[in-house]
């Protein structure tokens, strides 16, 4: 009995995916859904294999590179920013609205500026990805830093360790659940951000590939790009979960350690 539950637990995600695919395939058959609307899994796979592997690798590499760089940049900027915001009420009241402004500006509207200012190449795409990715990290980390219980702060203050150590030894560890939650959200945003950037300005990458395929109404091929993209997101998402489990197990709820 226990074994069955364990097996179920282990394979449930896989089974769920298989189920969804099955229903999808069946639906495309039964209702004769045209492939230009919602291609069947088999036609997507076929379309995927129809594209040269080297072409795939080129697009995947372009997207992955930009996504990871943008994500890394977002983390590198968002965390110090969150720390500054949590340390100074003045700063927080001044910067926060500006961050909201940046975050809520539709990238497409300012993309020309970014592209013109930063030239061609990966830079503008990295920046666009960064802009889409960093905000949740800032908000979540700031919330976590500020949510640290008073008593732990008093412990730190009583040791006169200074603000820096208070942040790094107390507030940041305490904020890790918040931070990791944001990092998870941001993986998918990084990928989405890259895709948006590739829609706006690119000659390569999965986003470009999808837009390109769509412009020819080759929907199964577009979907095969989509599948790769989604796998990329899932991998990054899982990776963050893995890092958390490996390096900060106490920031996970007991049931997931």
């Amino acid at each position, binding site marked *: 009995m226990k074994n069955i539950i364990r097996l179920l637990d282990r394979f449930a995600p896989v089974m769920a995916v298989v189920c969804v695919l099955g229903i999808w395939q069946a639906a495309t058959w039964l209702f004769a859904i045209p492939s230009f609307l919602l291609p069947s899994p088999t036609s997507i796979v076929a379309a995927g294999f129809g594209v040269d592997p080297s072409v795939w690798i080129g697009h995947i590499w372009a997207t992955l590179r930009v996504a990871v760089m943008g994500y890394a940049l977002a983390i590198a900027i968002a965390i110090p920013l969150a720390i500054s915001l949590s340390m100074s009420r003045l700063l927080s009241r001044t910067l926060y609205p500006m961050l909201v402004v940046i975050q809520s500006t539709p990238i497409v509207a300012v993309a020309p500026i970014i592209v013109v200012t930063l030239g061609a190449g990966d830079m503008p795409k990295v920046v666009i990805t960064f802009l889409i990715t960093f905000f949740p990290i800032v908000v979540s980390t700031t919330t976590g830093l500020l949510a640290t219980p008073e*008593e732990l702060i008093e*412990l730190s*203050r009583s*040791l006169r360790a200074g603000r820096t*150590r208070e942040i790094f*030894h*107390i507030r940041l560890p305490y904020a890790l659940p918040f931070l990791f939650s944001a990092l998870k959200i941001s993986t998918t945003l990084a990928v989405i951000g890259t895709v948006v950037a590739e829609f706006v300005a690119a000659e390569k990458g999965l986003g470009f590939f999808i837009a390109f395929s769509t412009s020819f109404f080759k929907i199964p091929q577009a979907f095969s790009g989509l599948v790769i993209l989604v796998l990329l997101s899932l991998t990054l998402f899982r990776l963050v979960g893995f890092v958390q489990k490996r390096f900060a197990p*106490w920031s996970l709820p007991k049931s997931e350690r």
Partner: protein
Amino acid sequence: MAANPPVIRFRDVEQIFTGNDGRPIHALTGLDFEISRHEFVSVLGPSGCGKSTLLRLVSGLIHPSAGAVEIYGMEVTEPRDEIGIVFQKPTLLPWFNVQNNVTFPMRHKYGRVHKEDNERALELLDLVGLADFAQKRIDELSGGMQQRVAIARALLLDPDILLMDEPFSALDALTRDEMSFELLRIWSERPKTVLFITHSIPEALLLSDRIIVMSERPGTVREIIDVPFARPRTMQTLSDPAFTELANHIRGELFSKPAAA
């Protein structure tokens, strides 16, 4: 002892909190006393009379609404280096194991932990009876064990002034006695000024030079009692008739007012 300048001095201190409903909570009033160098002073008083608040005032974590708290003659405006604190709650960090919690003051104050600090931490853990638990995580400890870790932590930096808020409250009688004597030993080997909050009258008598007895909210000093017993004190001190007498006196003092209750 009177020759020494006061280490801690309360000058007509008053503490009023603003409640979340905006109404003032009058916690302490008219506190005015001195604690000399290397004195061991206990504080006794009813629950909610402001003992923890008094300790937080000394530590510099909060500032009095009126009057001033001085340490070594200087007004306390922020926490100071020479102070070690045991808070009423253990306040341990769940992301460190027991040993790292004990060495935390070193890490936190000076940025790194030397080999000696780790050795000292293990010694202190041995002293509080937790040598086996050095590598355990905080949530695997019982309430009393956590309190003992907090005590070990406060002793790590060997502070000049030690502030302890009911440090032995979660300990059984035996451990409590052992810890009391350990504390006395440490105090006599490396003299320090101790402010010790407790609810146990015998404990206060056994440990202190003087006992500050506080009244109900708004808390103020009701009486300051000199404890006459010679040091070193031992288990024998407890059976001294003068001990029982003084204990009864304090008991009467603490139990007197609230006839209304």
